[in-house]
């Protein structure tokens, strides 16, 4: 089985945080990026060949992934390949949808000649053993398996909802139904028998039938043709951090050492690109409570229920509360940051204040807060 990670999404609801980088490259949990979870799951599940399909703002993502060595994915056969849209004799090939992105990369997939194809999205936080799902796919003699998770019924209308019979066979699929019949939501994780999916994609392309999206086109078309489509139920932690609020909430919950994700579990590590930095230093007068701190920081202020990423400097008498400070940010003295997400390489002049109330404040990458506009100037 080989995996294709769809990492081209813009994630426009993350506003400033995805203006210059793709959503899968958005930092999470102090030292990870969102895509680290899918990549680590692949590595831990023993998948050796992974295509990462990028499109929107791929620079940060490409440099993050490199040759995949940080996830142990630099195999001599396979490894990680970044797949970007390209032009050809048939014209430009921008990806029109999830399934279209797979169609455009048929030659890459064919070159590895897989029996099964795992489709992942690069923007979810979870730990999952894809090998279990493959066993399920084989046991059920399925041609398509969709991973599903139970969501609260009142939220079900935000998802693609599967209705199954008592053998887990999917009998009906509705994209964002107004009146959901079940609470089994698609996680955007699919295993296909490649030969079958390949036939659907190429034939529909030849006949001009729209087959651009897995949820909207491919799965309904499989069902209409009586293919064996099964729902694989997943019970662990799974979070789509698609909005500023959900990203903030997921990070805040992640601080808890008893978090369901169990990030310290050595048998299923989440890997990331780890730049080398000295240990972090907590100065005399620092007060750090209920927080996560990463290598390379210099901390002299008060940190309360926050995540401080690599190489952040925080000056004396500054107070950081219920916030996420991303890597390489410099915070001066007497700064107050409350209920905020601060992007990488931001700079806070002394006495600057960023306080979110109902909604979470976002300070963008490289943004400068305070200083020249300060009343003291």
């Amino acid at each position, binding site marked *: 089985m080989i995996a294709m990670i769809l990492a081209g999404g813009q994630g426009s609801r993350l506003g400033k945080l995805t203006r210059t980088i793709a959503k899968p490259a958005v930092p999470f949990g102090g030292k990870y990026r969102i895509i680290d979870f899918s990549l680590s799951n692949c590595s831990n599940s023993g998948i050796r060949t992974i295509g990462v399909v990028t499109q929107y703002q791929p620079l940060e993502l490409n440099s993050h992934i490199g040759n995949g060595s940080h996830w142990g994915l630099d195999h001599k056969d396979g490894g990680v390949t970044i797949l970007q849209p390209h032009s050809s004799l048939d014209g430009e090939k921008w990806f029109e949808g999830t399934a279209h992105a797979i169609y455009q990369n048929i030659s890459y997939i064919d070159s590895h000649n897989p029996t099964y194809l795992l489709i992942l999205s690069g923007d979810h936080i979870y730990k999952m053993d894809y090998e279990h799902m493959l066993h399920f796919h084989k046991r059920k003699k399925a041609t398509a398996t969709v991973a599903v998770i139970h969501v609260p019924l009142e939220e079900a209308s935000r998802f693609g909802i599967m209705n199954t019979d008592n053998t887990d066979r999917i009998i009906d699929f509705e994209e964002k139904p107004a009146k959901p019949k079940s609470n089994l939501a698609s996680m955007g994780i699919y295993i296909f028998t490649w030969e079958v999916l390949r036939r659907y994609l190429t034939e529909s392309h030849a006949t001009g039938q729209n087959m651009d999206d897995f949820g909207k086109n491919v799965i309904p078309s499989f069902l209409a043709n009586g293919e064996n489509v099964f729902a694989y139920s997943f019970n662990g932690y799974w979070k789509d951090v698609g909005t500023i609020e959900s990203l903030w909430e997921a990070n805040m919950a992640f601080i808890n050492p008893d978090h369901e994700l169990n990030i310290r579990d050595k048998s299923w590590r989440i890997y990331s690109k*780890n730049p080398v930095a000295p240990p972090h230093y907590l*100065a005399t007068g620092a007060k750090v409570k209920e927080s*996560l701190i990463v290598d390379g920081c210099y901390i002299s202020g008060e940190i309360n229920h926050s995540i401080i990423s690599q190489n952040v400097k925080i000056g004396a008498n500054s107070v950081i509360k219920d916030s996420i400070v991303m890597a390489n940010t410099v915070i001066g003295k007497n700064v107050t940051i409350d209920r905020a997400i601060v992007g990488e390489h931001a700079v806070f002049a002394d006495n600057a204040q960023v306080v979110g109330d109902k909604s979470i404040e976002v300070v963008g990458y490289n943004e400068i807060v305070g200083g020249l506009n300060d009343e003291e100037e």
Partner: protein
Amino acid sequence: MMRRNKICGILNITESRLATYPLTMNRPVASLPFCSRYRLIDFPLTNLTTAGVETIGIFTHDNLRSIYDHVRSGKEWGLDSIHGGLFFFSEPSLDSGRGNQGGLNLEGDIYNYFNNIEFFEKSESEYTVIMGTRMLCNVDVQAILRNHIEQGADITVVYKSVDQFDDGDQHVSCLTIDEDGRVRGLKSCELHKNAGKMFINMEIYIMKTRLLTKLIRNVVAENEHCNLNDVLHKAIVNLPSNGFEYTGYLKTINSVGAYYQANMDMLQDSNLTALLKGSQTIHTKVKNEAPTYYARSSEVEDSLVANGCLIYGEVAHSVVFRNVTIEKNTVVNSSVIMQGSSIGSGAELHYVILDKQVRIEPNTKLIGTKNKPIVIEKNSVISRISEDSQSPEIRTANQGNDRENYNTLFS
């Protein structure tokens, strides 16, 4: 930019382990853990590779296991390229009990160099730089080479000038240097408060590779048994040699006290910046650890802490390595806590060095002094047996050699 292969590097890590016992009972000086996440070998390896050295020979008569486990292919230092790379030369010496080989008495390490002299010849490098790991420093090898070429000396040796020294009892070799930077002599001396100005020999040498192989061949031809450093000590006095002054942070790790002090030095920003945050980023083996968690009950000040820790207690003026757990109501003060150790609730530690994977049971009290910190060996379990005894009884359960090997192998 430098022509490929202009210098080759030698890491001479046949350094005596006795001085830093028990920390070096089962590891060479080169793999002593330092400053929360490094090992001493990281410094010369980084200095060499940052200067563009692509071929490095590691010479030792010690067991290479912990070095090899840490360095592997040299990937973290960019040494896993198609050019050059890392080469290991390990030959047992007499004191490791496996002496005589080929009828030669292998006293000293010089035969390890002689038997592998092909390495220098094959590297085809014009210059060779020799470094050790006991002298903790961060040097610019390119600058030393430039100076060596400018001065036109046969050998350049790096030294640091010290006139104030407050740690005492450090035996080092010192150079006599005249005003134009020429080396005139070498003597063993003791550093203490009123020692006056001294030039500490940092045991870092640059010379033409041809000269080095000639020195090695000559001494073997005379059937002398000695160490490479002895050969070089003679050579810098007998041949036109140039001293290169290093002005950064230096600590000679030749006692447990010095090791402890070096770690404590890093709590001072100026030292940490000089050694670790300067123009050269010190590389080390990367581990994927979660961020460190500080609980509501934690109180941490003036301390360096690595990733992967869980901190519920009080930590002050200490250096904490990866994956350390410090439970509630503990006090850790002026201590060095190595990787994987855990400290039970109610424990109190002052001036203590915990080696890797030590378990301190709840309510145990260990109090050393600044000049004589208590050292707890790797994998020990320490507990206070009775609550009311004045001095805590220490029960060391060393979990045997197999366990030790296992941990080193997989840690």
